[in-house]
């Protein structure tokens, strides 16, 4: 690998040629990303062929993972999809420092460039988003995952251990891979950290140390009391607080079930180690799952800016590029790529608009009440329009450009004057970040020209509430002369540092956004047996999205008691938010939990039950029936399931009532 072009290709003439062809795009994409204010980890690119690409996709983007059938499954599916859908340009990039990305040799140049620009933006996200920092600020993922793979492979090849046992063990653990505490930084478990034991002997010793008279001892702390103490101690419920990291709890307190002996026995070393390995991997992949909308949207935003607006694709490449973009973004339904991209653009536009409006409201005679009638929006846009210097820099004589203009990259200008820069291809090199902000200012783009005028009265009023000097300027021109064109991008970078999907959606999804992009919620109708649109209110849309993205879109299950029924059984609780659990899946999962606990396991949840009669009545009236909420406990003892209703008081603490995720209009209910 040479220093200035981090592209690696195997010893193959075709591959080498491709690597050479992509040297310049890779170098220039990184430069352009920096110019746009991004700060990615360096990226190492690898040229791979179609089969290798499929293999990488199957293995979650890494070359070496532990042996498991699910990689085979993904590969199989990948290949079948490829056959039907045609080779799509896949972007694979790993959160690592340096990041690793893969380019498929058979892709068109436009696709390669699209992947490269996309990857640069992802790498920026990895490097700067704090959720990625939770696993490690300086990940060494590829090596770590490879080590995990080796360890597990060694166990599989160990003649003492049956391979099938190892595979089953892995399957059990994978069922719980989302049951970690992803909001806390990953902390490895001490390998010796096993269950604390309550020592009753110690208690009698301590009593002895108190030097009480034998009488008092007999009277108060008699054997009965001591026994009771012992019982209490045995009855210790732990953990003190419900614990979300079920994998950690099982690693510390779990046992395996020995089928022959029909009892729980200590986990073997290999079992403990694999459990911890997979838990580590779950933490490693968690940030990617938690920031999918943001991360994909972020990458799509910058990819599209670099490719389309900065002509990173040559004109003939552009058609293929557009084609590629629409394939990635236009897959219908709710697509995290397009939701993310739309939301980022919305954030950019609203930030810029807010800044513009703040200034406009300081113009003498413009108030939030008369805003829409008074302001000449065409004039505003004309004022904001990037001037020809930044809009078409490089096309005219370089002599006219002032090196002291803050929008100009003086160094690059110097180089350009010496003929060292290909201005035809890379005119942006002449601009500074400030210049780029002006050149790509969002509000004057054709698709956003109505954005300023669409501001609502409510938002205007809100902005004006904090205005003190409302007649600073005497004209629109004066008001806009000091506009900070970097406001949008600066804000976007701040957001990408601290947010995850849940907070991102929560904070930035507005009615305006929902209306503009036709989002709506839907629910399943018990009465008609189909799905119906229920609401276009942004609060409803937001609630549903929250449900879909909070906790990986999974219900929250916690360890409530590791000594349940005073018999070392495990009690899990579902923190019910009004959306019922898939009971079938939950039972299947409980069976897996049993394998990792070694003793009976139980799960408490609240189920929704529909009475046949109510259902019929509701149907006749064309209304929705109200379910009855019933606390239930499902227990699995290694042989069979039991399901029992439990008193409401037993599950009341599980039922959260603050958010109602049901978006069916009130009047639909029976």
């Amino acid at each position, binding site marked *: 690998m040479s220093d200035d072009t981090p592209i690696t290709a195997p010893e193959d003439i075709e591959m080498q040629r491709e690597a050479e062809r992509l040297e310049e795009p890779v170098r220039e994409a990184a430069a352009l990303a920096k110019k746009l204010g991004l700060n990615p980890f360096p990226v190492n690119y690898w040229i791979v062929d179609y089969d290798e690409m499929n293999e990488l996709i*199957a293995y*979650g*983007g890494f070359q070496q993972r532990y*042996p*498991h*059938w*699910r*990689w*085979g499954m993904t*590969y*199989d*599916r990948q290949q079948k999809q490829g056959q039907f859908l045609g080779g*799509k340009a896949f*972007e*694979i990039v790993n*959160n690592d420092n340096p990041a690793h990305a893969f380019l498929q040799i058979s892709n068109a140049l436009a696709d390669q460039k699209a992947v490269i620009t996309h990857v640069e933006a992802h790498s920026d996200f990895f490097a700067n988003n704090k959720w990625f920092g939770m696993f490690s600020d300086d990940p060494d993922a590829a090596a770590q995952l490879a080590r995990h793979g080796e360890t597990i*492979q060694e166990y*599989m090849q160990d003649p003492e251990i049956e391979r099938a046992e190892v595979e089953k063990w892995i399957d059990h653990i*994978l*069922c719980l891979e*989302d*049951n970690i505490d992803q909001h806390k930084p990953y902390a490895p478990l001490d390998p010796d950290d096993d269950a604390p034991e309550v020592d009753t002997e110690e208690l009698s010793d301590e009593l002895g140390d108190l030097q009480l008279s034998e009488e008092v001892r007999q009277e108060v702390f008699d054997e009965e009391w001591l026994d009771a103490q012992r019982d209490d101690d045995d009855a210790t419920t732990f953990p003190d607080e419900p614990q979300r990291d079920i994998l950690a709890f099982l690693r510390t307190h779990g046992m395996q079930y020995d089928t022959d002996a029909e009892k729980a026995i200590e986990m073997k070393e290999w079992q403990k180690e694999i459990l911890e390995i997979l838990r580590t991997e779950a933490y*490693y992949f968690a940030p*990617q*799952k938690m920031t999918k909308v943001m991360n994909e949207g972020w990458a799509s935003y910058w990819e599209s800016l670099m490719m389309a607006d900065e002509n990173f694709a040559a004109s003939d490449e552009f058609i293929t590029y557009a084609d590629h973009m629409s*394939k*990635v973004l236009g*897959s*219908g*339904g*709710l*697509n*995290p*790529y*397009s*939701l993310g991209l739309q939301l980022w653009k919305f954030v950019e536009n609203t930030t810029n608009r807010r800044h513009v409006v703040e200034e406009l409201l300081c113009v003498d005679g413009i108030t939030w009440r008369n805003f829409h009638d008074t302001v000449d929006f065409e004039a505003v846009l004309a004022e904001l329009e990037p001037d020809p210097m930044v809009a078409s820099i490089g096309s005219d004589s370089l002599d006219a450009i002032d090196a002291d203009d803050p929008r100009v990259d003086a160094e690059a200008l110097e180089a350009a004057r010496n003929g060292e820069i290909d201005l035809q291809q890379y005119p942006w090199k002449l601009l500074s970040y400030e210049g780029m902000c002006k050149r790509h200012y969002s509000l004057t783009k054709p698709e956003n020209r109505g954005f300023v005028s669409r501001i609502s009265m409510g938002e205007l009023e809100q902005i004006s509430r904090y205005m003190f000097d409302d007649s600073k300027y005497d004209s629109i021109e004066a008001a806009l002369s000091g506009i900070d064109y970097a406001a949008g991008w600066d804000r976007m970078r701040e957001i990408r540092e601290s947010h995850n999907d849940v907070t991102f959606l929560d904070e930035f999804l507005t009615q305006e956004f929902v209306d503009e992009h*036709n*989002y*709506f*919620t*839907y629910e*399943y109708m018990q009465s008609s*047996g189909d799905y*119906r*649109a*229920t609401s276009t209110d942004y609060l409803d849309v937001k609630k549903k999205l929250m449900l*879909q993205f909070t906790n990986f*879109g*999974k*219900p929250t299950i916690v360890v409530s008691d590791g000594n349940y029924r005073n018999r070392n059984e495990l009690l899990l609780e579902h923190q019910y938010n009004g959306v*019922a*659990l*898939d*009971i079938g*899946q939950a039972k*299947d999962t409980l*069976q*897996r939990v049993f394998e990792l606990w070694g003793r009976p396991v139980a799960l408490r949840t609240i189920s*929704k039950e529909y009475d046949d009669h109510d259902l019929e009545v509701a149907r006749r009236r064309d209304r929705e029936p109200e379910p009855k909420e019933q606390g239930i406990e499902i227990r699995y003892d290694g042989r069979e399931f039991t399901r029992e209703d439990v008193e409401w008081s037993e599950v009341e603490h599980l039922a959260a009532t603050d958010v109602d995720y049901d978006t069916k*209009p009130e009047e639909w209910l029976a």
Partner: protein
Amino acid sequence: MGLRDDIERYKDVGEDRRQDLSEFIQYGDLGQSRRDEVNIPIKIIDLPEFEYDQRDMGGVGQGDGGTPEPGDPVGEPEPGDEDGEDGDPGEEGGEHEYYEMDPEEFAEELDEQLGLDLDPKGKKVIEEKEGDFTDLTRTGPTGTLDFERLFKKGLKRKLAMDFDRDYVRAALQIDGWGPAKVFEWARQQENLPVSRAWIESAYEELPRDERGTYASLEEMETDIERTSTAQRIRRDGIDQVPFRREDERYRYPEIIEEREKNVVVVNIRDVSGSMRQKKRELVERTFTPLDWYLQGKYDNAEFVYIAHDADAWEVERDDFFGIRSGGGTRISSAYELAKERLDEEFPFSEWNRYVFAAGDSENSSNDTEDKVIPLMQEIDANLHAYVETQPSGNAINATHAEEVQQHFGGSDDVAVAYISSPEDVTDAIYEILSTEEDNE
């Protein structure tokens, strides 16, 4: 280990974890399948996880060029949308995977699981076509003469007639042995296919002075080395193969009667007011696998769907399981229509016929005895079946199934099955299909 190995393991695991067929019939999502393609969920794709109930969860959609009004149906949420398309690190991908089976495979597996073995009868001769030229006749155009056969026959004949001529000639040279003696010796002691005439002419040709060359048989045997037929053919070649007219055979093409295995399945369903959701579902769970099974067994399957309350009418399959009407019930109306349709288009001489009816056994008074049973007797079919679906046990006046059973009890072409919950479905299917199996 590595990719090959992981794929191999996946294949093994996948095979194991396809949803069990009976479980699928009882509880699975039949809606993902079409009549010509059975989609059975593969459990493997998702290792189980704690998840929300998909229906209870609802979701967010994005309108295409407009937003649906609240209340508009939006169709099934497309699975996997939230997962995006690209294989992102850490993503598990689509949530629903199906194992695709065609009806043939389905029928095979069902046979295996239920221990059935229905052998479909070919009824209709669709064509007589010329097969390979494998049949033979004694006359025919020269071009079709089976020369190979003629040659082999001739060769056999030659071998059968062949004998060691030199040896026999030598016997004639024994002192005192004449043709009569040699013939007797050759035929009786040596078993040589030699004729008296040949010996006599050989004796004539033998120079006089050579007669009596050997003093005795023993002397001749030590002097002359016998040769076998094979040795002689190798030495002399076959100068002449005796072709005979009687060995001539002419080839002609075999005539194959192609019988197409045709089946027509009439599905009859009571859609009257008393047939509530649960009953409807049970009918669908029973009829759909039967359709697949028969389609898988026969070359050509036609389906007729008849819905009835007090009247009967023909419907499309897509509508069949969903319809609900208000009226009363007269089961005979459906059989009348079935008879009409069958007689019109599907003569029993050419078609295997199956007439399946389902309902909750409620019928208007005397209709069963007076009309339905006679109609069932009139309609020739491989099998008639009635499936009673009563989720909540028997209703008092629901006696249709019972009456039919009493009348045809033990018959091998009428089956009656009772279903009160999905658990009964596979038993019912077995009951129905094994009834016909018995009658073979």
